[in-house]
């Protein structure tokens, strides 16, 4: 093994260690699939000369990567997990960055009548009642964890033929929902940037319970001395700066804003970003 490593390092050393000024961020597929990073990160790199390498996985796996010290920072969206991560001492300096919200999407025909429901809990109840097909991520991602919490709040433990756990990312879940006319829960960003909607439509949104905040956490250098804490902190400082927050707010797809910056005021109800929540019923 060592011989192989040495060999590879000799042959390819130049390109694997091309830039020492880089950080690795473990993040979620929802932010990556939305295209936010492609839009945001080049600006940061141009300003600071620091390259940002994003490994986009489910929140559960992202937490694991950071916990193992394989990333310098973490940008995810599941507050309870984040708090546990901080409490265990793996992470430090959590800051709010932005939010969007979760939405319930489903076939245009809406057999369960989700679009007529008051709130998300009622929407899920309707789906369960009608035993309409529902696609669950089933991958311990932030979205999946939130979905499970919602079912728990509705007092339903979903099972049966209509409830399908696919163990895959948001895009895969949307692709499947689109091809079998099923309901699913998505974050708004992925939904807006998703290009294979088919007959799917956003049926329910705007419930405060579906608030989806993203936070940045630095990996604790006391746990992992090799992490690039200074560079990671530079990134953290930048992403909550006025400049970056403005850029995040300006990121749109088809004239729809995807993320609402909230480093200054972390509550959804503060009205920082009303355009993100247009479908209050």
């Amino acid at each position, binding site marked *: 093994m060592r011989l192989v*490593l040495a060999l590879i390092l000799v*042959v390819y050393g130049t390109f694997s260690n091309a830039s020492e000024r880089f950080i690795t961020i473990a993040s979620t597929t929802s932010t990556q*699939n939305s295209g936010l990073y492609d839009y945001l990160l080049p600006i940061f790199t141009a300003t600071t000369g620091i390259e940002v*390498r994003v490994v986009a996985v489910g929140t559960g796996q992202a937490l694991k990567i950071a916990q193992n010290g*394989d990333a310098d920072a973490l940008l995810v969206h599941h507050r309870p997990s984040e708090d546990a991560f901080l409490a265990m001492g793996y992470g430090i300096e959590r800051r709010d960055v932005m939010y969007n919200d979760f939405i319930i999407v489903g076939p245009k025909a809406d057999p369960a009548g989700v679009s007529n429901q008051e709130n998300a809990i009622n929407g899920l109840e309707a789906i369960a009642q009608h035993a309409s097909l529902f696609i669950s991520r089933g991958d311990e991602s932030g979205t999946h964890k939130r979905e499970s919490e919602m079912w728990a709040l509705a007092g339903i433990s979903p099972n049966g033929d209509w409830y399908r756990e696919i163990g895959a990312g948001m895009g895969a879940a949307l692709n499947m929902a*689109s091809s079998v006319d099923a309901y699913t829960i998505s974050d708004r960003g992925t939904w807006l940037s*998703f290009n294979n909607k088919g007959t799917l439509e956003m049926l329910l949104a705007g419930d405060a319970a579906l608030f989806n905040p993203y936070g940045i956490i630095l990996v604790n250098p006391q746990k992992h001395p090799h992490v690039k804490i200074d560079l990671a902190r530079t990134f953290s400082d930048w992403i909550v700066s006025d400049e970056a927050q403005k850029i995040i707010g300006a990121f749109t797809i088809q004239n729809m804003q995807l993320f609402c910056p909230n480093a200054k005021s972390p509550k959804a109800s503060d009205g920082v970003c009303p355009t993100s929540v247009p479908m209050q019923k």
Partner: protein
Amino acid sequence: MTILGQAAELVVSADAELVGIVGLSLRVSLTATLIASLFAIPLGAALAIWQFPFRQVLIVISTSLMALPPVVVGLIIYLLLSRAGPLGHYGILFTPTAMIIAQSVLIFPIVLALTREAILPVNRDYKNLLDAWDVSPVQRLKTLIWDARFAVVTGLLAGFGRALAEVGAVIIVGGNIAGFTRVMTTTIALETSKGNLELALALGIVLLSIAILINALIHWISSFGQKYQVSR
């Protein structure tokens, strides 16, 4: 626009990002093939030539390893290279180096088995002659590998094709980082998950074209090699 048209346009436009992705794919898989071959070819030949303790066990293990799903290989390499793992201090998780290691491990048993199969008939033909000449083990290895080279290269290309086509291992150990560890297959997976099915398919066609090229090469090489084989 048709998907084929889109694929053609992707190739013709030689979009810098696509060129980078294809280039990285080829570089990673080619290097992995060379590294795997460095070990697999002599060992495969040795398995064909000599009887030694645990030879059968080795053959069974190496043949079984061919069935290993890339994602399992990726996971093993991931656990080894993670900072929490035994080789963590090298800091090479989520780099092309990690992808090369994973693919080397993945295709090692393929190149090994195909080399062994390539050498077996040549060794059967040559054995008495080489024995009579008292050919040394190293010289014997060199002679048999050289004279079976067309079949050996075929195995090597099969390994390369497998490396180029797999997604499970590289996405785990490479992390699919844009502009750094993103290769053809992980791009296809990503674009599919974004619902960009046509773009994904167009990329798939580009990958397929490369595969066709490789297979044509295999075919050409082995038909060239047939001339030198005794039909008797």
